[in-house]
């Protein structure tokens, strides 16, 4: 316990450094630069984090670690499709931090002034997920174009749908899914329930699903990736702990959790 507390202190100070150089332009952090930095114990309150569905496992873990490092804080997550979360934030949802699975959805929030200067913290590539028994005997990407193979994809407005489409364009394939799901976890659920023969999800989702699905790699020359930006929102009701959480995600400790979950460096 003592050791982890030490590393967390180190992480917190690393976060401070990042906060100092990364977001000095925002009025948010310049208005109270000492609040987030005075000491970790000064932080309290609830941080509402709106995060892409694909971040669910990694962020849940980061949230628990953050709470342990800052007693008195509570991190509450709203996981969902990045496009939907961006709409919610622009409609005035009480969010403190937004972590999107694509720069496009982050830009939606930046254009309206809800967020300023987001920072990319991870990237992700796609992978084919099939049920453990692989009923349609899918072995490569081109199998998804077979008419007998039932494929689930994300709908195109969602980053995982847009990125999967890039993969098919790169591979010059036409894939007609049976369903366009709301977010990547819904695609994964349809695969693990065995209702579809294959789904295109993130590498990290296959890893997180364990033995519920089997992953089939997509060749790197046709694979596509998406970047994950994070930002503390300008109207965050709880700015100090919110900025501290953002900094924590961007810290070395945050990076190690994300790497363990299968995310790549941005």
């Amino acid at each position, binding site marked *: 316990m003592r050791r982890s507390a030490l590393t967390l202190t180190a992480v917190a100070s690393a976060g401070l450094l990042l906060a100092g150089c990364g977001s000095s332009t925002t009025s948010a952090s310049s208005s109270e630069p000492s609040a987030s930095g005075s000491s970790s114990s000064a932080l309290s309150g609830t941080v509402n984090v709106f995060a892409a569905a694909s971040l669910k496992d990694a962020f849940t873990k980061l949230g628990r670690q953050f709470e342990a490092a800052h007693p008195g804080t509570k991190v509450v997550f709203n996981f969902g499709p990045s*496009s939907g979360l*961006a709409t919610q934030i622009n409609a005035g949802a009480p969010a403190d931090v937004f972590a999107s699975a694509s720069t496009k959805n982050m830009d939606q929030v930046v254009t309206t002034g809800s967020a300023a200067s987001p920072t990319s913290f991870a990237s992700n590539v796609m992978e084919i997920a099939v049920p453990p028994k692989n009923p349609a005997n899918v072995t490569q990407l081109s199998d998804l174009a077979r008419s007998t193979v039932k494929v689930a994809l994300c709908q195109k*407005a969602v980053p995982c749908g847009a990125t999967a489409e890039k993969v098919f364009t790169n591979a010059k394939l036409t894939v007609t899914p049976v369903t*366009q799901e709301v977010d990547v976890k819904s695609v994964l659920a349809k695969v693990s329930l065995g*209702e579809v023969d294959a789904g295109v999800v993130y590498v990290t989702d296959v890893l997180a699903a364990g033995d519920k699905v089997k992953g089939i790699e997509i060749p790197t020359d046709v694979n596509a990736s998406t970047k994950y930006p994070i930002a503390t929102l300008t109207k965050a009701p709880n700015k100090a702990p919110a900025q501290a959480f953002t900094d924590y995600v961007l810290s070395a400790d945050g990076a190690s959790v994300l790497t363990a979950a299968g995310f790549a460096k941005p």
Partner: protein
Amino acid sequence: MTSIDTPPARQAGASRSPEAARSVQSRGAVPWPLGIPALVAALFLLVPLAGLLIRAPWRGLPGILADSQVLDALRLSLVCASVATAVSFVLGVPLAWVLARSQARGISVLRALVTLPLVLPPVVGGVALLLAFGRQGILGRLLDEWTGITLPFTTAGVIVAETFVAMPFLIITVEGAFRASDRGFEEAAATLGASRLTVFRTVTLPLIGPSLLAGAVLCWARALGEFGATITFAGNFPGRTQTMPLAVYLALESDPDAAIALSLVLLVVSIAVLVGLRGRWLSTGPAA
């Protein structure tokens, strides 16, 4: 606001003595402890609809509604809700009769169970449907093995989901009517030699006509608005399983104007149904 207090006053006037009626009317002003919450309730129900009308992208509306995907969703919604209502009618009316008339043990337990989808969150219904009729489901697996047919992600799947969620509305309405209907006519017909099926068809059903209509309308409206079970069980694919509520929800993520336009269409359809059935359903309900 006068519309709130006039109907009871008119009913009272019709059934009671003139003095009583006059005293009711003199007290016709709504006391404020009732009036204020009533006003809040009415505003609460109406303001969101006004918001929809005020924020509607009227200028872009024709363009959005002419989109083939929107028309597909509307057509799919109307077709699926109607088929689901027909299925609910054919299967639900007999079940309502059994629930109302059977003396068998455990019938009240059955009634509680079949009306469970009324209170069950629709998403839970969708998960349950997947486990029953999905490709790996307890019945769906057999269906797939024997016929090669799978229900999820098909238009038939949408109808299954909507029927599951909406049929209890019809059953509960019709069952109440069966209970309340006068058994004397049925007994008379039976005495005159009519078979039980003939009695059911020519006496019992016509007796509860208004309730059948009310039940069917409730069922249709619920099916039209179905979202949770549909997206869980039937997925989302334009033209095949993407009904209007799914289209509204998904459009909100990428194109809020389109979502408002689609919502307006659903609002118009709902109003049309209410207006079309005004008088027949809203005011002349039987004891049920």
